[in-house]
């Protein structure tokens, strides 16, 4: 299956964006994002804490809908999903 992962703002600068991943069946959002972020320590550290959990301010969306951080470890991705990961918003 193919899943698109989009990072925004500082996370995009550190990790790139619109990354097409091919996770195995049953892969959770947190596992998918971790696998991608692991390639660059600074990007990984911006998103995950020392225990490998999403930092509390990080916002995760699946197909435009918010996924609460505690649920990201048990929410499984599906073919065609778009996962977005970004820091607190600052528009206006």
């Amino acid at each position, binding site marked *: 299956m193919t899943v698109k992962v*989009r990072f*925004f*703002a*500082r996370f*995009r600068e550190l990790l790139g964006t619109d990354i097409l991943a091919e996770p195995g069946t049953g892969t959770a959002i947190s596992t998918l994002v971790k696998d991608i972020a692991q390639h660059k320590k600074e990007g990984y550290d911006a998103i995950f804490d020392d225990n490998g959990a999403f930092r*509390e*301010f990080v*916002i995760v*969306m699946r197909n*435009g*809908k*918010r996924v609460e951080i505690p649920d990201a470890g048990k929410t499984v991705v599906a073919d065609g999903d778009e996962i*977005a990961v*970004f*820091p*607190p*918003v*600052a*528009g*206006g």
Partner: protein
Amino acid sequence: MTIKVQKEDVDIGALITAAKKHGTGAVVVFDGIVRDDDITEMELEAYEDVAVAEMEKIAAEATRLHNLLHVDIIHRIGRLSVGENILIIVVSAGHRPEAYAGSRYIIEEIKKSVPIWKKELTKDGGRWVPGEHGHGAGKPLKK
């Protein structure tokens, strides 16, 4: 109603004219501009589809709560210079209390939940403007 994320500037005068629907007694315009905070430019980035959907929800809720007759929200992205428009909100209502309250509601909700980010560019590089609300984006609006 016009709700957009775009690079181009807008004609605020034309928006005011279009906002004067039957029954309008007040039009309030909010124009957020790039402030001269010792920066060279500002770079704005959006998660566009979600940002527009979120602003549409905010506009609908503002209309419901404050009896607005018309709402436009245009949020610009890309690279903007000091003094340029960032965000234009135009609302109309029968009376000024509703128009002011509706406009204020919209800007405060945008700051909480719309996925847009600003980077201040300086002579030495740049800095991302910290968000005011870590947990707002994508959450249902309070009723």
